[in-house]
């Protein structure tokens, strides 16, 4: 078991100088602190010391120095060229080691490993080898990780990483090396067995060529698979970019909609304005004249009462009589008749009054106009109100349009179509690659068959010629051994994969709240993830953040279970972030079981769930607290929580 005995950090980011000496026993160690106090940077310090990388993102507020500058800000103010040092002191069952990395600005970092010999620390000549033996870089992400990034375990291209990781943790790598070595010996043995036998020799040559082709094809296939993975990664980037522009696309659509709406509103406003203008020019005169009209009305009424308004029939009647040459008494008269003169005189008297007839009509018109004026007022007020509403709506739209224009200034819309085209090209490439992988697969199978056939032929020929018997025996033995090893390797890989599937599913079920939902979780031969949800395959991209994270955690646990490094300490940042309350509970429940045989260092916010958990489940001497350094503004100190 590898145990951390001491961690010492000096001048690294938020840590001016901290030292912790955890109990060298398995179990949980908890570090709590508020945001921005450097929890992630503690992990970065460890990663930096061991692998010279700082993979954990820090919040901007926390990061008071530029990313590339790891020197503590407070120290930098006093001394620009101060040394940054991180030391990790670990022990495995037999030895004690100290990993030390240090750097002074502008220089390369120095990495040293010391072994305790008696009471002295002795420098180890190849520090990387010791590190790989104890805490291999390729497995880093399985023992130093952040809860926030856990859900990204299953991002594009994860299959390859997972496969490599699993192969490494299950020691298949060692077996692979043995198989490779055996294969080169086998080739020699084959040559020996076929020596002095031209027919066999040529067959061996062909067989070797075929085998080489298989290896080449496999390599090509791997390469193409890697390319596909890269393309998939790019696809994700493009999709995100596309999403970004999607926003602009929506804005464009919204702007067009506003334009259309504005045109509609304007035509509505026009209609209303025209109606108002029509009413104003058409009806206003009557309103202005209201007084005069009322006066006329009373005049007419008066005239009517006093009989001064003769009915118009009289004038028309006289006209009719004159026209037809008829006297009032009905007698025919000529134009020269006296009666005609009388009629003409009468007409002269009555005719001016004939227009008075229309005055009677006027009386009614005036009444109705005055009556209608209240309607006119109502209509006008309504129209004006309506127009006000419309104008306000239009103004709102105008304002929104202006805002959109402002936002759109920052967009380059041509890029949207570029990205869309690039995405289409990508899809085509991926499809193309898949076809090539299939084609290579065919070639490999064809070669394998031919190679097997040749094997048979060679053996038959050997029996016939009976030469090099000893060499043939050795070759046969090696051949069998090789086949057995390859078979064993396949079995181990298969078992590891099954174990990974089984454990992942088991831990997932333990953590996940809705166990009914998921029927089966398994890894395919290519380490692709297969999740069946009530009988339906679900693409991994459709996991929610919480689900993805739980799945990531489950996989981590499963890998730790099957790895030869299952006793490596785990550093786990923000385990509870992005988890729902129920999963948090479940997670805290299983947390003590996570570490039956190793140290687990948890870095968490001091939220209520965690404090409660600490109270009930963690021994007092295993809880630490990150606090702002009272003396240095940009620094953090670490104390015992119960001190």
């Amino acid at each position: 078991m590898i145990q951390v005995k001491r961690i010492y950090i000096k001048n690294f980011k938020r840590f001016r100088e901290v030292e912790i000496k955890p109990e060298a026993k398995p179990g949980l160690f908890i570090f709590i602190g508020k945001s921005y106090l450097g929890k992630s940077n503690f992990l970065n310090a460890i990663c930096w010391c061991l692998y010279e990388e700082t993979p954990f993102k820090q919040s901007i507020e926390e990061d008071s120095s530029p990313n590339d500058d790891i020197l503590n800000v407070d120290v930098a103010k006093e001394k620009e060229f101060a040394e940054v040092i991180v030391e990790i002191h670990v022990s495995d069952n037999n030895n004690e080691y100290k990993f030390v990395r240090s750097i002074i600005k502008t220089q390369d970092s120095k990495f040293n490993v010391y072994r305790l010999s008696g009471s002295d620390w002795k420098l180890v000549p190849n520090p990387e080898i010791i590190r790989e033996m104890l805490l291999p870089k390729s497995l880093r992400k399985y023992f130093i990780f952040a809860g926030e990034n856990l859900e990204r375990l299953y991002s594009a291209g994860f299959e390859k990483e997972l496969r490599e990781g699993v192969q490494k943790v299950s020691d298949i790598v060692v077996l692979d090396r043995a198989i490779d070595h055996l294969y080169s010996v086998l080739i020699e043995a084959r040559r020996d067995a076929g020596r002095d036998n031209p027919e066999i020799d040529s067959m061996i040559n062909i067989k070797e060529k075929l085998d080489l082709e298989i290896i080449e094809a496999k390599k090509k296939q791997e390469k193409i698979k890697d390319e596909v993975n890269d393309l998939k990664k790019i696809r994700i980037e493009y999709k995100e970019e596309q999403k970004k522009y999607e926003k602009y696309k929506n804005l464009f659509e919204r702007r067009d909609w506003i334009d259309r709406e504005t045109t509609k509103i304007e035509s509505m406003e026009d209609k209303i304005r025209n109606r108002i203008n029509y009413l104003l020019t058409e009806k206003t005169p009557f309103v202005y004249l209201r007084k005069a009209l009322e006066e006329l009305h009373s005049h007419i009424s008066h005239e009517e009462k006093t009989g001064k308004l003769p009915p118009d029939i009289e004038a028309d009647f006289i006209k009719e009589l004159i026209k037809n040459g008829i006297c009032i008494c009905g007698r025919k008269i000529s134009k020269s008749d006296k009666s005609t003169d009388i009629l003409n005189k009468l007409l002269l008297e009555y005719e001016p009054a004939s227009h008075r007839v229309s005055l009677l009509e006027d009386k009614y018109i005036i009444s109705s106009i005055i009556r209608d004026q209240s309607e006119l007022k109502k209509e006008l007020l309504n129209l004006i109100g309506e127009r006000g509403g419309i104008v306000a709506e239009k103004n709102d739209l105008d304002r929104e349009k202006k805002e959109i224009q402002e936002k759109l200034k920052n967009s380059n819309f041509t890029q949207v179509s570029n990205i869309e085209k690039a995405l289409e090209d990508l899809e085509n490439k991926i499809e193309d690659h898949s076809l090539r992988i299939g084609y290579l697969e065919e070639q490999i199978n064809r070669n394998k068959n031919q190679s097997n056939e040749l094997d048979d032929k060679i053996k038959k020929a050997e029996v016939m010629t009976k030469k090099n018997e000893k060499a043939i025996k050795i070759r046969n033995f090696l051949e069998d051994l090789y086949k057995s090893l390859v078979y064993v390797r396949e079995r181990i890989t298969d078992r590891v994969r099954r174990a990974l599937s089984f454990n992942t599913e088991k831990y997932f079920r333990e953590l996940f709240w809705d166990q009914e939902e998921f029927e089966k979780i398994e890894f395919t031969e290519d380490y692709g993830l297969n999740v069946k949800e009530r009988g339906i395959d679900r693409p991994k991209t459709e996991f929610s953040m919480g689900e993805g994270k739980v799945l990531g955690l489950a996989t981590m646990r499963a890998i730790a279970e099957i790895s030869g490094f299952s006793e490596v300490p785990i550093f786990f940042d923000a385990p509870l972030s992005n988890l729902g309350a129920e999963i948090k509970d479940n997670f805290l429940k299983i947390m003590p079981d996570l570490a039956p045989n190793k140290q687990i260092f948890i870095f968490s916010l001091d939220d209520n769930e965690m404090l409660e958990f600490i109270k009930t489940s963690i021994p007092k001497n295993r809880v630490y607290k990150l606090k702002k350094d009272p003396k240095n503004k940009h620094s953090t100190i670490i104390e015992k929580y119960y001190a």
Partner: protein
Amino acid sequence: MPNEIDENYPQFIRIDENIKDKCLKDLIDKNSGTCFSGQEQGQICLLAATIGFVNKKKKKTNKPTDIRLYRTLSKEYKMLIRAIVLADCNYDYNVLSDGTKVLKIIEEYSNGGLQLLHEKIYDKGLDLSIEDDIIKLLNKIQ
């Protein structure tokens, strides 16, 4: 010329050319933003006549110019003309039988009204559309 305001008459009213050029054109200008913009000239002249009458502002036509009335005058408008003319000549009904005289009175008020409107909207720089006035008037009456 018929001597009465009958169904087809008048087709024109005659206002002072000067006033047409100076006032009427401004008022009906599409960019004027007043409620008269784009409306019929004849209609505006009749409205102006009522405003001239109410404000007792008459102006003789020195150089007459024809303003066509595109629509046949409604009964209401014929009544309106009679009302102005009768009030102007103290209810001497006989005046109504002389169409030319009737129109002359209307035209003189129209000139005066157009000048008033133009003065109100342009010379005094008031942005008041007639809308506010009319609502005020209506409010007073109702």
